[in-house]
């Protein structure tokens, strides 16, 4: 077993079978959070089996050779715990946050899930309709259509272009054998990362992990994604017409991959534009309001054009998308929103960035980084997420990277990546009924500079 001790309270090791283990002591409460990560997500699919990684995740809650279906969740809840799992572009993960006395039981659960899931035909069929229901529930929100169209337009070759939930036709066609093959291909210790954070003693826990996971045999090494998205060489536009309560806009730009030094630059640029994203894909925006001192809030919301502006920048292994998504106020021409929004990006490109803008954006990022490091669940998530897409060191290094970003960096990034040739603009307008009534109070104000 190779091992290296990292920072205080952090221990990282790799077992002989290739399993990466990250342990973080946080002794303030008697809780532990156990996350088992797999390097598999929608990027590892192809048309015909889109959505399979997510469906496999569902199947892995249906019992194993040693743990009954009921006990997969029951054991967690009896330990005062919460559990869940999710699938995204690069990752599939499962977690339990429980009273620390139940740590060993949770490790056994995850070890069993890695190798022993059952996949009975009847369960596959029942889950087919559940997953389709999840897809259709999402489609009840008209923004889902816009997000899908814009994502699939901005990316034309890379497998990040299809939705993690999959296409309906594929969900209807995927077979039990497809699912089981996917499971067996990607669920192996050498393709996994196990993270435990909380009330634990690292040395003892590592021994326990070795006992429980060490016996699992190494699998084959899954093939990496080879496709690189070809450069975009002109603006792309999508216009949708669907029943909707509002006009929605979605501006997508090609974002740098998380390990790219420019990722931190875009974090700060988004801070100036919109108050900064969370880099925690699980906690997302919990507890955060809109950045009311940000440029887009002031220009679009205070400028009486949009009722809100949301941005998204999720860390990913390969270049994905940076998105700006305003909701138009009733009666506002989306063209006005576009002009003002692009004007704000142009300000960045021209270098119109004051020291205070930069400091505010960095302060916001660094404070959020600290606030999101409070809970054992968040900490275990972040270490595991970054290790799965690149390295946990990248997560630990983000504050340093953010502190070093300069106004020139942002201006260069805006010129190179947020320009016309690299953007996709999507607009969804309501399809049905009478036009919405005019806003209360009458006239709307003009855009701000």
């Amino acid at each position, binding site marked *: 077993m190779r091992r290296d001790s990292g920072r205080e309270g952090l221990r990282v090791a790799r077992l002989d079978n290739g399993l990466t283990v990250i342990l973080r002591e946080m002794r303030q409460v008697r809780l532990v959070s156990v996350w088992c990560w797999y390097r598999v997500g929608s990027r590892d699919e192809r048309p015909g089996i889109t959505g399979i990684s997510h469906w496999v995740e569902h199947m892995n809650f249906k019992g194993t050779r040693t743990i009954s279906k009921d006990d997969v969740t029951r054991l967690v809840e009896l330990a005062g715990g919460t559990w869940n799992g999710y699938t995204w572009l690069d990752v599939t993960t499962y977690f339990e946050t429980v009273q620390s006395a139940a740590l060993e039981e949770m490790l056994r659960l995850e070890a069993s899930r890695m190798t022993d899931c059952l996949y009975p035909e009847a369960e596959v069929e*029942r889950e087919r309709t559940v997953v389709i229901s999840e897809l*259709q529930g999402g489609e009840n929100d008209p923004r889902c259509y816009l997000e899908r169209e814009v994502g699939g337009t901005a990316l034309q070759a890379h497998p990040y272009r299809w939705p993690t939930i999959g296409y309906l036709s594929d969900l209807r066609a995927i077979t039990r054998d497809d699912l089981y093959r996917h499971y067996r291909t990607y669920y192996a210790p050498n393709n996994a990362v196990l993270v435990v954070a909380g009330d634990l003693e690292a040395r003892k826990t590592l021994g326990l992990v070795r006992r429980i996971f060490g016996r699992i045999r190494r699998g084959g090494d899954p093939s990496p994604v080879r496709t690189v998205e070809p450069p975009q060489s002109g603006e792309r536009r999508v216009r949708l017409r669907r029943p909707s309560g509002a006009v929605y806009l979605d501006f997508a730009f090609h974002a740098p991959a998380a390990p790219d030094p420019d990722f931190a630059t875009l974090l700060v640029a988004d801070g100036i534009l919109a108050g900064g994203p969370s880099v925690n894909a699980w906690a997302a925006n919990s507890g955060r309001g809109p950045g009311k001192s940000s440029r887009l809030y002031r220009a679009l919301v205070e400028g009486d054009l949009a009722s809100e502006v949301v941005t998204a920048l999720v860390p990913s292994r390969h270049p994905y998308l940076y998105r700006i998504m305003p909701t138009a106020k009733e009666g506002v021409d989306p063209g006005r929103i576009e002009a003002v929004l692009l004007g704000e990006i142009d300000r960045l490109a021209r270098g119109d960035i004051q020291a205070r803008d930069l400091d505010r954006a960095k*302060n916001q990022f660094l404070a959020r980084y*600290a606030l999101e490091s409070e809970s054992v669940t968040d900490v275990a998530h972040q270490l595991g997420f970054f290790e799965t897409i690149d390295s946990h060191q990248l997560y630990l290094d983000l504050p340093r990277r953010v502190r070093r970003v300069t106004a020139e960096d942002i201006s260069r990034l805006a010129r190179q990546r947020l320009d016309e040739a690299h953007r996709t603009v999507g607009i969804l307008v309501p399809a049905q009924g009478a036009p919405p009534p005019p806003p209360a109070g009458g006239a709307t104000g003009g855009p701000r500079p």
Partner: protein
Amino acid sequence: MMPARSVTIPARSVRLDNGLLLIARENRAARSIAARVVVEAGCAFDPPGKEGTAALLAGLLDRGAGNLSAEAIAEGFEFLGATYVARAQRDTLDIEIRLLSEHLPQILDRLRLLLVEPTFPDEEVRREKESTLTAIAEREQDTASVAEEALAAALFPAGHPYHSRRLGTRESIRGIGRDDLRSFHRARLRPAGTILVLAGDLEADRTLDRAAAVFGAWRDGGTAEPRVAVPDVRPPEAPVTIVRPIEGKTQADIALGFVGLPRRSPDLPAAMVLNNVLGEFGLGGRLGKAVRERAGLAYYAYSRFAPGLGAGPFLVRAGVASGRVTRAVGLIRRTIQALRCGVTPAEVKDSKRALSASVPRYMETNPEAAAFLADAAFYGLGIDYPDRLPAQIEAVERREVEAAAGKYLTLGRHVLVVAGPQIKEEEIR
């Protein structure tokens, strides 16, 4: 040195002469603090015809206060990396601020200014009203919101505090002016009854003193209104079925609800266990088993109840494809009926254990602990509630769970709403 390792960290509190309750809870694990304010100014207290007032007010507290502009207030929080969120819930108006502990003094001063001296500038009021109208239009297309709002409107008669929508209606929003906001603020945002919890990297006694110095001078701006009693309602005499078609939807949201219980009800621990058995434990209790796991009908099928100052709804929710609504409603009805016939000792044991053992987790982070304590204090349950709650749950007996099922889940005295694709009402009646 390792911090104390009690199951939950004790909190300290002090009530100021003006009636404000201050609570502090020390947790040195990170250099952060969560502040939570809870005021009895939720949308249940919107003046008649002015529904949406509380939600507007919540959106406007930081849009001008004292001699500070909205811009200056936003800059004040955000330059420090602090986050500020205010929201009108049903009973309460809640504010949550997350901050680095070194900024506590500035943030406390700022919080006082927002609570006590909001200015409601005309421009900001107009803008907030317009954004609310957009949000109302969006909610009218949202099957989950439509189902739950229609359910509340049918369970609670017009004029009841729980009847109306949180955001109000287009008409009520248009009719709200700056004077309405000022008088709502004067009547309901008062030190008496307000709770401020500070949880995190702080020294409890010193922090209570500091907060007392900041908030001690807050005096009622006008007539102090006593705590409002939310009247009891009689459940419907016959089942009510409502179908709300919404264009362009592939999936229907089902809400089947009963009149539940208030937070101070002695039935509360039994109702928690009942709800856990019915629609929470594992993948959604018995409901999740019947509707999702066995029938594969839905991604979500669960129950929850919302006890408040008054008896909030006890409801079952599920989202299913349009062709499966009839079958899902049938399964939901049969699951409730079966539950009324009895629960097993094993179910009760598991649910009690799951609920009581979860309490430390509810209190893990500073924002969670602050919210839990503020909620307990608001409903008069005391700041030691997190310590008492596990024993209350463990003491629940099986017959009490069954009695609660008999009392609160009476089919025939329910409201059923289906929002989404057009379906025939007679099929689900």
